[in-house]
């Protein structure tokens, strides 16, 4: 059987499964559509949340980022897992007890203000839109590589599938497809990692391989990380285990990712689908466990992939390059330019040439693809796209073809599951928070579901458009927005809404506006308006959300102190959500 047939079997099979689940779980009422009738088991919700949380970027790019950045990449590892501790101890048990459909519902009710509700809608739509564009792009890329079709066709296939099960099935459809998607992802991620760990370190468990000895070849055993540090040093890179980001910036970025995670609406609403506050706590444990399986493996994959890549490429004659090198070169993700004309590949610090490779059609039989980019002065001759590290891993480890197909199915599952969760929040923001709560409160249930379906169709069309025509590196730059915004708006405001009875409407609104303005202003200024990087105290745009969050806390408290206290029924509501008894099932 050829690779293509295996790919068709795995991708086609997984799609058939997702659609079958969607058809079985079609939602009819708003309660089914928004929160799956709050009847999901903690275990299933844990898997679904893990799949929801881990996006195409996590699945495909994270190991590549770790390989390239070493210690610096710890900010993502700690940030995207540590956020769940904040989420579980500070946010979700109380919002579950509050017992409504959306995060924005809480802002609107707790701060007795449709203005706060509207700010919530705008933030939720903005955060989810930036995210979902990247997912659609990811699906398109995988498809175009797999089946040799244009990216737009890949995006359209992905969008149709997501609409089928998220638009029609609502939360109920999403939940059970996400469970299936998590299973695909976890096998796709760990199986190649286990094999490559055995290959390089002789250790079956990748996490032990990471701290174990490098045993490939016949050199004296040396610890894997020392070997990697030595390789990096030889080629002029910083030591793998050293960091280059200043401590304060590293601290701020990690804190933003943590607080942002705890404020992301598509993650919070997943916990509205379980039965009780007790079930929320249990489900949070499952969620983090399922996420940790992949997050604990990623650093091992990153270190293995880098060791393998450098030792197989650097100093090797092109004519003797491993077959995976040539495969990915054919797909345009690897390039080699023989700067010194010795026929041997040299990999060093710096870019081999400017920008992404542009290949000329001329190629000598058996020779490398010719790149027409302007070359750089440094000695590096090799270009590779970071994302290939996960996708090429099975080939580097010499694994059978079905494993490669499984990894591809995993990439698609990661992108689709996140896109579906985001789409639900987007459509709910319009149908419930905007139409039902602000514009036309007398709308019937079936009308609301219709609005939700139409909104998800519209948002998906926009996301697909940007997936096909990404505004240059706009998406990469706006990821900082999504977390900065969640950390400076939703997280502190919800937190104060639960833990303080004194914070009132005026304080919350002023705090949110101050936090968002500082964060957005700083990011826009440094990402789009100026070229220099004279950051305040060395805090990069990625980390500024932390300062935005602190500002939100200060402004909200000061303004609340000088304006009237919230009404008595709000104070009672806050008291009521602080104790878990009889959370009941979610209502309007």
């Amino acid at each position, binding site marked *: 059987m050829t690779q293509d047939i295996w790919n068709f079997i795995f991708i086609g099979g997984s799609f058939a499964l997702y659609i079958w689940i969607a058809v079985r779980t079609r939602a009819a009422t708003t309660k089914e559509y928004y929160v799956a009738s709050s009847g999901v088991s903690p275990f299933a919700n844990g898997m679904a949340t893990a799949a929801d949380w881990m996006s195409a970027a996590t699945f495909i790019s994270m190991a590549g980022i770790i390989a390239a950045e070493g210690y610096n990449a710890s900010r993502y590892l700690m940030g995207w897992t*540590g956020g769940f501790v904040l989420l579980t*101890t500070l946010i979700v048990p109380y919002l579950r007890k509050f017992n409504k459909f959306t995060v924005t519902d809480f802002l609107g009710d707790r701060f007795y203000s449709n203005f706060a509700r509207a700010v919530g809608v705008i933030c939720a739509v903005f955060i989810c839109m930036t995210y979902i564009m990247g997912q659609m792009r990811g699906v398109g890329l995988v498809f175009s590589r797999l089946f040799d079709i244009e990216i737009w066709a890949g995006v359209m296939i992905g969008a149709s599938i997501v609409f089928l099960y998220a638009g029609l099935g609502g939360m109920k459809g999403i939940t059970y497809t996400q469970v299936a998607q998590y299973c695909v992802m976890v096998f796709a991620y760990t199986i190649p990692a286990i094999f490559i760990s055995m290959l390089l370190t002789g250790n079956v468990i990748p996490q032990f391989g990471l*701290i*174990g000895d490098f045993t490939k070849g016949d050199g004296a055993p040396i610890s894997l990380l020392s070997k990697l540090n030595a390789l990096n040093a030889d080629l002029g890179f910083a030591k793998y*285990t050293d*960091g280059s980001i200043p401590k304060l910036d590293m601290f701020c970025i990690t804190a933003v990712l943590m607080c942002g995670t705890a404020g992301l609406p598509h993650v919070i609403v997943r916990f509205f689908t379980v039965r009780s506050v007790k079930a929320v706590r249990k489900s949070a444990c499952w969620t983090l466990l399922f996420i940790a399986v992949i997050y604990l493996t990623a650093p091992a994959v990153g270190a293995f992939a880098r060791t393998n890549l450098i030792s197989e490429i650097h100093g090797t004659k092109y004519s003797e390059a491993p077959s995976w090198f040539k495969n990915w070169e054919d797909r345009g993700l690897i390039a080699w330019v023989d700067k010194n004309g010795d026929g041997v590949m040299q990999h060093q610090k710096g870019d081999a040439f400017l920008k992404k490779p542009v290949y000329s059609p001329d190629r000598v039989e058996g020779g490398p693809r010719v790149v027409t980019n302007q070359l750089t002065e440094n000695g590096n001759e090799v270009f590779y796209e970071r994302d290939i590290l996960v996708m090429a891993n099975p080939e580097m480890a010499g694994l059978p073809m079905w494993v490669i197909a499984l990894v591809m199915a995993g990439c698609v599952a990661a992108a689709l599951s996140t896109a579906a969760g985001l789409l639900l929040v987007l459509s709910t923001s319009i149908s419930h928070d905007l139409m039902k709560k602000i514009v036309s409160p007398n709308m019937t249930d079936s009308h609301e579901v219709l609005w939700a379906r139409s909104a998800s169709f519209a948002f998906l069309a926009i996301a697909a458009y940007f997936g096909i025509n990404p505004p240059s590196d706009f998406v990469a730059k706006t990821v900082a927005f999504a977390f900065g915004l969640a950390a400076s708006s939703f997280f502190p405001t919800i937190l104060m809404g639960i833990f303080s009875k004194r914070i009132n409407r005026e304080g919350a609104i002023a705090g949110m506006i101050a936090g968002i303005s500082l964060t957005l202003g700083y990011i826009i200024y440094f990402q789009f308006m100026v070229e220099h990087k004279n950051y305040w105290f060395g805090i990069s745009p990625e980390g500024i959300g932390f300062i935005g969050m602190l500002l939100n806390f200060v402004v909200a408290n000061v303004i609340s102190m000088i304006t009237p206290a919230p009404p008595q029924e709000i104070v009672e509501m806050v008291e009521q959500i*602080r104790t878990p*008894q009889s959370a009941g099932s979610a209502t309007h």
Partner: protein
Amino acid sequence: MGSPPGDAPHSKSSQSVYWSKSLKIVGVILTLWFLVSLGCGILFRDFLDATLPNIGGAPFGFWMAQQGSILGFLILLFLYMVLMNKLDRDHGFEEGQ
């Protein structure tokens, strides 16, 4: 002990005792959370790398940043669940399942 499903009335004072105890639990969990991640992984990382023994082949602070902190979070969430469930039982706030 546990209470029947539905709302058994709780006095204001028992609610405020429950709340102050749950704040204590959250406070302890979050202090540990800060120490294992932002503390060991970033702030005291150089110090830990230099003074504590390596974990296998990895410097201690580096290992905490890429592996230990995540394992720590798992333990903390489990601990939170156990402590909060016990608090619910002790104060009669247990939910009817």
